[in-house]
């Protein structure tokens, strides 16, 4: 068993028009920039993208939007220090938006990974984001019912990965990555360092390999913030 592929192009080759794609990261932290850029090279169209944000500057998800790949964003916070890509596309009616509270977003993703089709949360009760959703009272408090959120693909960024797909992350770059890995039909990870099985202490594995399908090594990944400060526009 070996889940590694040798090129970024191979890693994202199967992502097709109209696919739903989860993309890990919180802002630039933990964002799989190289996988995103390889996806832009392929130009699949009409994608639904699930991420906490909606891109920044002219790289990563912002570049996906500017290059016309994205039909819909599902996110909690489509603003950033430089939100021009999303803002223009949204205002022009080119990209649809579903705003989900951040905790509900990640719990819906976790639910998909954990086989929970629906759950109740107090979050958003009584607000416009709960409109049209079933409400139920438990122990005297009102809760909103939320559905799982699945994807065809997840693109994630990890630190170490062995050939079985066991992964670690780097600091707060962990964020959505391990949860999205659970929720997609196919999880594709860019990994900063490939290691042999047994190198990662079994106590320190964050994402067990069962949740990972494809891995590609990106030894010195770019940081989104650095690219933005350097004024990079992709491609």
């Amino acid at each position, binding site marked *: 068993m070996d889940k590694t592929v040798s090129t970024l192009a191979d890693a994202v080759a199967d992502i097709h028009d109209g696919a739903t794609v989860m993309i890990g990261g919180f802002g630039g932290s933990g964002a799989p920039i190289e996988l995103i850029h390889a996806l832009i090279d392929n130009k699949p169209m009409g994608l639904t993208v699930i991420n906490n944000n909606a891109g920044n500057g002219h790289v990563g998800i912002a570049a996906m939007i500017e290059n016309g790949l994205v039909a819909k964003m599902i996110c909690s916070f489509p603003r950033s220090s430089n939100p021009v890509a999303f803002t223009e596309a949204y205002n022009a009616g080119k990209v649809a938006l579903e705003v989900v509270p951040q905790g509900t977003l990640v719990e819906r993703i976790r639910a998909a*990974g954990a*086989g*929970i089709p629906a759950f109740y949360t107090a979050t958003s009760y009584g607000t416009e984001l709960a409109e049209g959703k079933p409400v139920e009272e438990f122990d005297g408090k009102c809760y909103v019912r939320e559905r799982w959120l699945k994807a065809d693909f997840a693109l994630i960024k990890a630190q170490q990965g062995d050939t079985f797909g066991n992964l670690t992350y780097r600091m707060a770059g962990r964020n959505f990555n391990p949860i999205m890995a*659970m929720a997609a039909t196919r999880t594709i990870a860019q990994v900063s360092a490939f290691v*042999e099985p047994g190198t990662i202490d*079994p106590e320190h594995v964050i994402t*067990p*390999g*069962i*949740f990972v399908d494809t891995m590609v090594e990106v030894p010195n990944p770019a940081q989104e913030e650095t690219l933005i400060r350097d004024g990079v526009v992709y491609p």
Partner: protein
Amino acid sequence: MSTIDTIKLSNARIAWRAAQDIEDGAYVNLGIGFPEMVAQYTVEGRTPVFHTENGVLGFGPAPAKGDEDWDLINAGKKAITLKPGAAFFHHADSFAMVRGGHLDVAILGAFQIAENGDLANWSIGKGAIPAVGGAMDLVQSAKRVAVVTDHVTKKGQPKLVQRCSMPLTGVACVTRIYTSLAVVDVEGGRFLLREKLPEISFDDLQALTGAELITQGDVADLVVPDLD
């Protein structure tokens, strides 16, 4: 000793047959007891990864006597060892793997299997203290749910039936049954006979089965090496 007892496969040989269907890289949960034997017959060159409910992926066989570490056990509370690439995780993540459909195969024992795939394997009914463990989670969620079992009970009653009379573990969940006499798939609410021991006739096998055995094209010979 009846004719059946002279020809039927031992548990080890049933386990061997089940092991032939486990692909390289498959994530597999083996039930406590008899199903655990399947791991011993892993096909050369394949690396399945074994999952246990209590939070380990990638474990290996029992350690030598005296080398047990009682924090390193399987769901049957038996001491295990680790293979390279193993991982520990907590129980909620373990059952997220199960319920979320991430296991390729779960292999369990059975009291009864109905032709619609219903499984009864957790309770003999009134009187006994109920104890379910993780069986109800596993049968509802693994991509393939296989059963390894004698074809009939110790009293000679069919275990493959039209409708389970014992309390259900799960509804319409079993996909394949490896018995001491045959390999049977559950498809479209019917038992499809895939393989049978060449030593038993179709009619004799049908007589030991509580629901109709359907054949589609040839039924292959169930051939298992002598493991004893």
